[in-house]
């Protein structure tokens, strides 16, 4: 019988026999794609140097993963796009004008020490790109806090240095910040479009939001972390950020400046290092927001998103352990036990 002849070629495996279309690589490359607008805006404002810095980060991240894995005779996983993403995020988190060795050092730390030494994608405790950046910021504090002025021409080679809005806010107050940008509306517009000093990819809120919308639409991220993160920052900025006492702060400035939008949508939501249960994600977001504002208002650094996310990364497994998703049939069980 024809059927018998076929039988020995049949694949035997466990159920389910059909699978969804999502793969890790597909998710990662989509996230990479969603960062494209922010990347374009960074080149627009900070010139070809921005592309060079980001490109170098990506290149060294991918290369270091490949070299590490092949030299240990493991399968190279650069195809899944996560090393590319780490490089890209690190690049977008660097100031525009850094010496060439900074992206390389940062990428190697991010990929080799933060990710691969812990066992590779899925086992890392901290967000690799953020550890890379934290390492650089602490190691080269001066080089990592030189901010270029945006030029909006795609060409700037050596721009003037200036302070970030949060730096001005911390050192000289809101009045001075508004004075620099003209008036309040100009300030908001500049923050929204990205015409301000800051890390390469963090400046343009609008470009980041376009990318975030893609991720939200595809369901790769949910509203829980970004919303709770940003809302906490907003509320705390409004409550404690004003000079005239409680509840006089300007939440919009705190939300739009610094790396909040980039961090909340693209880095706090990193699957591996955030809680996987939705309720836990809200706690995680609130924690990130609260630590961010504590650092911004009371700490030594003008910006706190990076350290906030890294600190909350530590708590992610704990949150996952403490928070349980609503279990089917659990309510009845408890009632019966009480009887």
């Amino acid at each position, binding site marked *: 019988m024809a059927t018998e002849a076929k039988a020995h070629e049949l694949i035997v495996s466990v159920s389910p026999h059909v699978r969804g279309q999502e793969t890790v690589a597909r998710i990662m490359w989509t996230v990479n794609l969603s960062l494209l607008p922010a990347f374009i805006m960074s080149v627009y404002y900070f010139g070809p140097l921005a592309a060079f810095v980001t490109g170098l980060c990506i290149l060294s991240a991918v290369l270091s993963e490949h070299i590490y894995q092949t030299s240990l005779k493991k399968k190279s996983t650069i195809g899944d796009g996560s090393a590319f993403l780490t490089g890209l995020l690190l690049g977008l988190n660097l100031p525009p004008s850094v010496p060439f060795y900074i992206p390389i*050092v940062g990428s190697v730390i991010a990929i080799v*020490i933060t990710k691969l*030494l812990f066992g590779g994608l899925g086992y890392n405790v901290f967000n690799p790109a953020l550890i890379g950046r934290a*390492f650089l910021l*602490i*190691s*080269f*504090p001066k*080089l990592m806090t030189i901010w270029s002025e945006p030029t909006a021409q795609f060409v700037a080679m050596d721009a003037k240095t200036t302070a970030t809005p949060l730096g001005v806010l911390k050192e000289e107050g809101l009045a001075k910040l508004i004075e620099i940008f003209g008036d309040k509306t100009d300030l908001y517009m500049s923050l929204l479009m990205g015409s301000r000093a800051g890390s390469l990819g963090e400046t343009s809120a609008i470009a980041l939001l376009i990318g975030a919308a893609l991720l939200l639409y595809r369901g790769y991220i949910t509203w829980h972390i970004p919303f709770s993160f940003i809302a906490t920052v907003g509320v705390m900025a409004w409550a404690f950020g004003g000079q005239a006492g409680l509840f006089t702060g300007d939440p919009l400035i705190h939300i739009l400046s610094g790396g909040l939008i980039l961090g909340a949508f693209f880095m706090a939501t990193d699957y591996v290092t955030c809680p996987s249960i939705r309720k836990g994600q809200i706690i995680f977001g609130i924690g990130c927001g609260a630590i961010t504002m504590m650092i911004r208002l009371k700490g030594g650094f003008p910006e706190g998103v990076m350290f906030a996310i890294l600190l909350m990364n530590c708590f992610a497994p704990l949150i996952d352990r403490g928070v349980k998703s609503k279990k089917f049939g659990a309510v009845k069980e408890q009632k019966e036990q009480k009887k």
Partner: protein
Amino acid sequence: MSLKPKSNWELIKNGMFGENTIFRMAISLCPSIAVTNGMKNGVALGISVVFVQTMVNMTVSLMRKFIHPKIRIPIFMLVIAGYVTIIDLLMATYARPIYKEIGLYIQIIVAFASIFARAEVYASKNKVFSSMCDGLGMGIGFLLAMVVISFFRELLGKGTLFGYPIVSGSPLLIMILPAGGFLAVGLLMGFFNWIDMRFFGGKGASGV
């Protein structure tokens, strides 16, 4: 620890490599991170530990038949605290510049798990001379670990060794901060474990 009695040289070697306090036993890590941002400090604390460890082991071994087992812990505590106080006073008097930098950590030697552990595990059960060798080995092992860690941290973090400039350029500042201490200890621990597995069959005692 093997049950076979070890020769005195083996005891010292064991303390230095096989059961190295920091890299193999992973105890007394706080000082290894706090003090190792410069070789000067690291070496000074290491030498103090060699002294305290050896003396404590000897003293405890001497008294081991006299001490009632129920109160051995407070007695060990007193012995350790006594030696630490003595070394603390001596340093404060005759080595003031170093004392200013690491005086705080000298007093912390009282709470070192490694010293207490050796008094309890080894010295309270063995003869004076072998206890001394064990203490010496453990102390030297700790000293070596401090030297290795502080070597990398000072070189990478400041570009100097014992304060003398070695390399120019902007150093990795993080290495002399506490975070860099964790990084250095972790990576070195991994490195020594790898060496152990690669060349010595992954057994506890490497015995170089």
